[in-house]
């Protein structure tokens, strides 16, 4: 799957002071703050926040992600604006079901629409929390509605991203992977 986000010109509209309230536009660039945008600690903090507040669990960085189940769930939320790319969440079926169960207080025996919906929302909150940690990104980068993919033996391919963060996290016996892909930065 190729991810090509919108790269429309992003302008920050700044309202000046004074009686006339003259309005002018100021171009904003993230190029100079690429180190801040790609700081891996922002992703860790976002994952910890979302899982603590929505599931009541302490999530910690884990070792390399290995999928022991054939069936997996992948949620994708796209970024558009100053940064184009995506936030991708991936887990096995058991972890996805565990996350949805903790979010809703319901029990699930398979990946149904509610589980997919819950995983999509987790990815949405991760994307929003991550971009919210860099003010220029929060103000000049939009989010798509989540897309959720389920199945077996599939791969997500992204062509030559500008940068990519790929972390594995664990809580209890569950593990999952979160990836931030930036394929364009203005």
């Amino acid at each position, binding site marked *: 799957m190729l991810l090509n986000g919108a790269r429309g010109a992003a302008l920050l509209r700044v309202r000046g002071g004074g009686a006339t309230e003259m309005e002018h536009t100021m171009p904003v660039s993230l190029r100079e703050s690429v180190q801040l945008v790609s700081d891996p600690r922002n992703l860790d903090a976002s994952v910890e*926040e*979302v899982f603590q*507040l*929505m599931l009541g669990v302490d999530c910690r960085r884990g070792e390399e992600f290995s999928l022991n189940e054939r069936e997996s769930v992948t949620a994708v939320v796209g970024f558009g604006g100053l940064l184009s790319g995506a936030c991708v969440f991936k887990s096995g079926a058991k972890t996805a079901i565990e996350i*949805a169960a903790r*979010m*809703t*207080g319901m029990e699930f025996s398979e990946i149904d*629409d*509610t589980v997919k*919906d*819950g995983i*999509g*929302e987790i990815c*949405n*909150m991760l*994307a*929003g*929390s991550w971009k*919210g940690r860099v*003010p220029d990104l*929060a*103000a000049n980068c939009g*989010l*798509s*509605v989540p897309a959720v993919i389920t199945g077996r033996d599939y791969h997500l391919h992204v062509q030559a991203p500008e940068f990519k963060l790929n972390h594995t996290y664990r809580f209890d016996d569950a593990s999952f992977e979160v990836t931030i892909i930036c394929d364009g930065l203005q």
Partner: protein
Amino acid sequence: MSEVRTLIVDDSSVMRKIVERSLRQAGLDPLVVYEAGNGAEGLDLLKAKQVDLILSDINMPSMDGLEFLRQIRAQNLAPGVPVVMITTESSEEHVKQAILAGALGYIRKPFTAEQVKERVLPLLKAA
């Protein structure tokens, strides 16, 4: 507290349930909940039902939360009913747009039941 009729607008059914649970944890009981999956469905519900509180997401397909707010005001639906946005969008610009469109409160996802209580209860008491 008397019955609180609440419209929850979010494209995620899971989030609608979490918001409802947070309202109950905040002490809103009895609570009557109407659910809509986007702004257009929310407008249809407001034409048919009277509500005391509206909670809406921003990023939704078909009609987003900001347009939903503008249409509520333009069509004079639910006059005087407090609207609180619950969304992943947290920039000052988004908050400003929501307030300009008529929102009285703003809750960033992820949230706690305590945050919902702090933002919503004062609005209901003032309404």
